């Protein structure tokens, strides 16, 4: 063991174990099969995917599904490898050979984890290259120029996304809640949670509905970090999300004004007050550190209904930042961090239990964790609250509470969805990438590491027969 570490120029047990693990996994047929499966599933998706009929839609689907397929395949294999790494050492009596070396349990755990993660990183990188190649092929395909232009501008792009600084504050909701209670709209019998949710929705809808002749304003504070490329290819858009409860509404006249210290721009449009619309604006309006004021006026005719914006994302400003390749690399890096957590879960479980038990436990944890958000939303308790609040069993309450806590615990992991950013052409900043990776590795992985080392230290290693 020591000689191995020295030969790699690292007087370090971790490196030695990591190299051994990597080498063992790299030679394994299972690893080759997993890599082949991940790559072939991506290629199969390209051949079989059915989008919304546009090139952009198809590519978005392929990118999202490819990254998800690669994640799930590697996650399962990472769990398997993690569960087997220490538990199989113990079962095969190899652990005694390691135990007599000058290796601390922490070095053994970390070495195994780094080794497994490195194999996953390599496979994921291959998948990432494949996704990049598919995107490049789509861009150079024989599709109509308009389709390729849309693809290049709105999908294979990395754009700054600026959101309006107006937010619904706690005071706003409290004030509206009091009004709604006073006028009897909210009954006294309604639970505090339901009443709050209703008042919040009311505030949001009231703020995003504009009557004829009225106006609404949004303020965008452009961060200092936003650098608009000086090349002639720089572009900026306002992405407007309109909502209508009725279909087939006639086009409505709208006036948009964009005011910034560097200049103004005004547009008069007549569009259906429904769906997502892009408005090209001069990129010069977006200056780091400056404020961009966007004003909308409903200029429709007397019989036109109010214009309603999506209450959660009424308008965004998108500015060209860089290309797709760098964004893909950052997305892959975040996915790799998720995978390393999965491997750590498997490794810790494998330290505590035998391989089959560890695998069963981790698969259960994995399924519960990945579906906790969904089941919290669709839980029996939520259903019964509406239909039959008296009949919520203690078991249902406990299960709902537990799922809610798990969902809350894992919420930071899901805060940044790299695949969604990627297909939306939204720039994933390096700062957000590092923050996410640091959060994942510094908290979740650190906790699992501590648990794994603790269990390994307490593990009773039987003598070989």
């Amino acid at each position, binding site marked *: 063991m020591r000689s191995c570490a020295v030969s790699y120029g690292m007087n370090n047990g971790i490196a030695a174990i990591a190299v051994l693990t990597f080498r063992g996994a790299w030679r394994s047929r299972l690893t080759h099969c997993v890599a082949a499966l991940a790559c072939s599933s991506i290629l*199969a998706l390209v051949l*079989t*995917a*059915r*989008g*919304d*009929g*546009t090139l952009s*839609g198809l590519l*978005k*689907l392929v990118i*999202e*599904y490819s990254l998800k397929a690669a994640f799930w395949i590697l996650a399962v294999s990472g769990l398997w490898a993690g569960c087997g790494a220490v538990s199989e050492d113990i079962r095969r009596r190899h652990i005694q050979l390691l135990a007599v070396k000058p290796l601390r349990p922490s070095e053994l755990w970390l070495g195994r984890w780094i080794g497994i993660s490195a194999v996953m990183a390599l496979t994921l990188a291959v998948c990432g290259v494949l996704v990049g190649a598919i995107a490049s092929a789509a861009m150079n395909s024989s599709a109509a120029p308009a389709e390729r232009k849309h693809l290049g501008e709105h999908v294979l792009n990395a754009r700054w996304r600026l959101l309006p600084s107006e937010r619904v504050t706690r005071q706003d909701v409290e004030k509206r809640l009091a009004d709604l209670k006073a006028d009897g709209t909210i009954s006294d019998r309604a639970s505090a949670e339901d009443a709050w949710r209703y008042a919040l929705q009311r505030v949001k809808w009231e703020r995003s509905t504009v009557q004829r002749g009225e106006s609404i304003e949004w303020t965008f504070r452009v961060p200092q970090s936003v650098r608009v490329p000086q090349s002639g290819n720089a572009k900026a858009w306002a992405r407007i999300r309109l909502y209508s409860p009725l*279909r*087939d509404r006639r086009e409505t006249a709208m006036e948009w004004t964009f005011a910034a210290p560097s200049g103004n721009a005004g547009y008069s449009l007549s569009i*259906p007050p*429904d*769906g997502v619309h892009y408005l090209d604006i001069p990129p010069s309006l977006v200056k780091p550190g400056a404020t961009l004021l966007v004003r909308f006026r409903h200029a429709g005719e007397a019989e036109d209904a109010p214009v309603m914006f999506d209450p959660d994302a009424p308008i965004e400003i998108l500015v060209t930042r860089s290309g797709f390749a760098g964004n893909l690399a950052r997305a892959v890096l975040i996915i790799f961090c998720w995978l390393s957590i999965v491997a750590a879960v498997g490794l810790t479980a494998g330290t505590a239990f035998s391989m089959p038990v560890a695998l069963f436990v981790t698969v259960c944890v994995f399924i519960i964790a990945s579906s906790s958000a*969904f089941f919290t939303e669709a839980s029996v308790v939520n259903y019964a609250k509406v239909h039959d609040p008296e009949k919520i069993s203690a078991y249902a309450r406990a299960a709902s509470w537990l799922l809610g806590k798990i969902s809350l615990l894992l919420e930071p992991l899901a805060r940044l969805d790299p695949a969604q950013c990627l297909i939306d052409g939204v720039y994933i900043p390096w700062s957000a990438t590092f923050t996410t990776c640091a959060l994942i590795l510094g908290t979740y992985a650190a906790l699992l590491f501590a648990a794994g080392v603790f269990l390994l230290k307490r593990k009773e290693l039987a003598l070989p027969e």
Partner: protein
Amino acid sequence: MSRIGNRLTKWAGIGLVCLLFAAAGAVKHYFIPAVERRNDEETGAWKNAPPAVAVTAVVLGAFRGLAVDLLWLRLSELQDRGKYLEIAQLAGWITKLEPHCSDIWAFHAWNMAYNISVMLSNHEDRWRWVKSGIDLLCQDGIRYNPDDADLHAEIAWMFQYKIGAFADKAHETYKRRLASDMTRLVGGGRPDYSAILANPSRIEALKREYALDPTLMQKLDQEAGPFDWRLPETLAVYWARKGLAHAGGRSLASCHRIIYQSMHVMFMRGSLRFEPSTGRYQTGPDLAKYPRVIEAFENAIKACPGDQNILTAFSIFLDRAIILQAGEGRLAEAADALQRLRKLRPDITENDPLAYAETEASRLRQQHSGLLPGLEKPLK
């Protein structure tokens, strides 16, 4: 445990296993027919499935239903949030996991063609979703369920109502796109079948884009035509006639209804002038269809005796036929229609088709603000 104890446990275990085997043997005759039936169903179920679908279904085994549930939940959630990107893909997977449940095919095709399409304001975007719904049934649904008359009727209804009728604001776009596609595929309204059948790439294109078989098209033209294949009603008749071969009961009535309604519509506005370059799409009455429409109604009456709806529809058609034909100077046909109408409605005493047409036309014009029903909203 002692050695004797161990041995005893072992033999007791072997004894229990033998006992269970014997019990299973004794009751097996209760289960064998069910197992055989299920085996037959399973073998048949994947008969037309491509290897990927068959393998996935077999590998998933009993979890297939669970996978369908999860995919369906995701589809509903995405649809509620207005994210339609994955819908076609998810619908494709769901239907392929339950390939022999025609209700599932019909639901997802309907969902795309009717529910999702109308959520979009751009008419070209809408057409893509209508086409996706039709494709789901034509390309895959029929492949897995070639003998399902209900699916044939669903496809026919989409052509007849979604594209052919005026309910959707984007119906003009649908009609133009269909006419444009069919012009490209068959070279105009009336195909030159010898040229198409001699060219495998054209046959393949027809199958790929609208799942049409030129041999069947030719047969239909000979038996009930000639048809203008740029019209949605012609495609409705094609699919309904295909479905008739497998229809019975409710589906038989559905297929016949689509046929006679579409024929009626073609009589009223089946003469099409379409210019792909300018998008001009103009329809007018196709009075030459009269004997074919009569045939369609008579076939339906014969197949579904006692169905009052067919008789009512027939009398409405005859009423309109008298007016239109009398107006165009086709007095023999108008007289024939009046004769048939009098058989259906003994309360009519008028013998002169011209007089009947005049009275009836003025009554209808009063009712429908100056336009004859069926000819309203002409495309420009």
